[in-house]
């Protein structure tokens, strides 16, 4: 009788240990996802800050590109306004800002004076790098979400996740269809 009791006790202890380790692992992954999301946020905010500087530098040279310039400013303001809403709406607005910006930078190729401006060159590097940082932070965020979701859905950790109410994370997709297209350049 006593042996059976001890075995049962051992099993209970093992189950408890499994629960504790899996739970902690899940919490760590969830925090990583949260932190990764914050990283995207930092980079998106940095882009909002860079755009007014860019406009200030560019507007003296590109007087005939009012539409392109306005598109960027509007996209920026819209994106900033809805920056508190969910991932889906946000990624759409940010996607539109990205494509408006790349249109502007493509048009800037037609202005040799602007391209010789040191200020513009420095801003161009900052903007290009910020775009990269947004992509890389999104990449890290999606990788983190994938790891987290795998852990939540795969056996045996899914039992712990179900018991403790862990919910799968949402991917940050590139929803704006035109973000992957080559920017259209008009020479009118």
């Amino acid at each position, binding site marked *: 009788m006593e042996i059976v009791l001890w075995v049962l006790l051992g099993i209970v202890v093992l189950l408890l240990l499994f629960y504790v380790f899996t739970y902690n692992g899940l919490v*760590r992954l969830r925090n990583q996802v949260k932190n990764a999301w914050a*990283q995207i946020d930092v980079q998106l905010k940095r882009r909002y800050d860079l755009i007014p500087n860019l406009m200030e530098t560019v507007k003296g040279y590109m007087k005939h590109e009012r539409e392109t310039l306005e598109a960027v400013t509007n996209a920026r303001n819209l994106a900033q306004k809805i920056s508190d809403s969910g991932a889906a709406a946000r990624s759409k607005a940010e996607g539109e800002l990205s494509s408006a910006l790349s249109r502007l930078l493509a048009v800037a190729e037609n202005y040799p004076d602007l391209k010789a401006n040191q200020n513009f060159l420095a801003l161009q590097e900052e903007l290009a*790098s910020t775009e*990269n940082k947004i992509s890389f932070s999104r990449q*890290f965020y999606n*990788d983190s979400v994938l*790891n987290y979701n795998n852990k939540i859905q795969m056996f045996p950790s899914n039992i712990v996740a179900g018991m403790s109410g862990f919910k799968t994370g949402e991917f940050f997709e590139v929803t704006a269809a035109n973000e992957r297209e080559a920017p259209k350049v008009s020479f009118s």
Partner: protein
Amino acid sequence: MWEQIRSNQIRSAVLVIGMGALLFVIGYFLGLYFFDSGIGGLLIAIALWLIMTLVGYFQGDSILLASAGAKKIKHDDHPRLYNIVEEMRIASGLPKTPDIYIIDDPSLNAFATGRDPNKAAVAITSGLLQQLNRDELQGVMAHEISHIKNRDVLLMAMTSVLLGAIVMLSWYGSRIMIFGGGGSRRDSSSGGAAQGIIMIVALLLMILAPIFAQLIYFAISRKREYLADASAAMYTRYPEGLASALEKLGASSGQLKSANQATAPMYIVNPFRKKGRAATDLSSTHPPISERIRILRAMGGGASYIDYETAYKQVHKGKGSVIPASAMSLAGDSSQTVSRASTADDPGRLERTRETSDVMWKLSDYKTIECPCGTKLRIPPHFSDKSIQCPHCGQKHML
């Protein structure tokens, strides 16, 4: 990522313990031989190791950086390099951007240092900075950052300290045994046979231990290089960047003046490499560059660990493995690649050379004045006149 780091930690622990045991065995037998007390020798070995470890842990990175003559840069000194490192910090999920250093040396190399991800540094030679375009530089920095992320830097620093202690003890021990008189040998009356056995064991140990320790060290180092390459491909989602950078590194044979055998594994390619040497051997800290390039190029558009492992098997005809099984499931979805459009504005070779030399002058406290005639005037830090005349067009510049 966590699984992979943890399995690395277990393997590293085994390695470090193994090398530590080797060091203590040497200490024990040396003590037994010289002053009839194994414990005394053991204590000396432990003391030596402790001192070296403490120095290595707290001062190792600054010693390495200072001996390489590295200069720390800020964002404005070289915005592109700084941005690239930050991009890779984000892609790898490192908590803090490592300090960035430039070494004024025409040879091509780069390394990472620092005992933990919160206190790390990457360094690159000015020669390499001139050679690489943005994508290649990104590949190299991703490789260095993954050394930090995978905790290779700490592991290699700690093992190189152990290796150093073993080599030191063996070297001095064997010299004293062969050329000088041993302590207890003359006045010992207790059984000549036992004494002889101890002497033979001690001598054998002192000859074999450094070789053995070095082989472990090199083997681990080589595996780390593959893993860092795989991580770099995953972070950048663009293996070609690193492959093309390695190609440039492989084509040069310039040896880095400030490197030595113990610090060699920290560099992206072996700082003592000779041109055209392809054969892999046990006494090399790095796998052959040509092979690393072949693996990266065999990844066929993918960028995950699985793609790297497949490519590695393909190059090695199905033998061996570099990625811990627990890390294989990790994401590496290459559908969400970062656009490579930024290369369009990438400065060419000539601009990069100018840019790098500007940075090096600036880091040496020289001021630069650009004369409207196109001449660049470099003003030394202790220049005392109030104005200077352009030697080209004669215009006066106020300072």
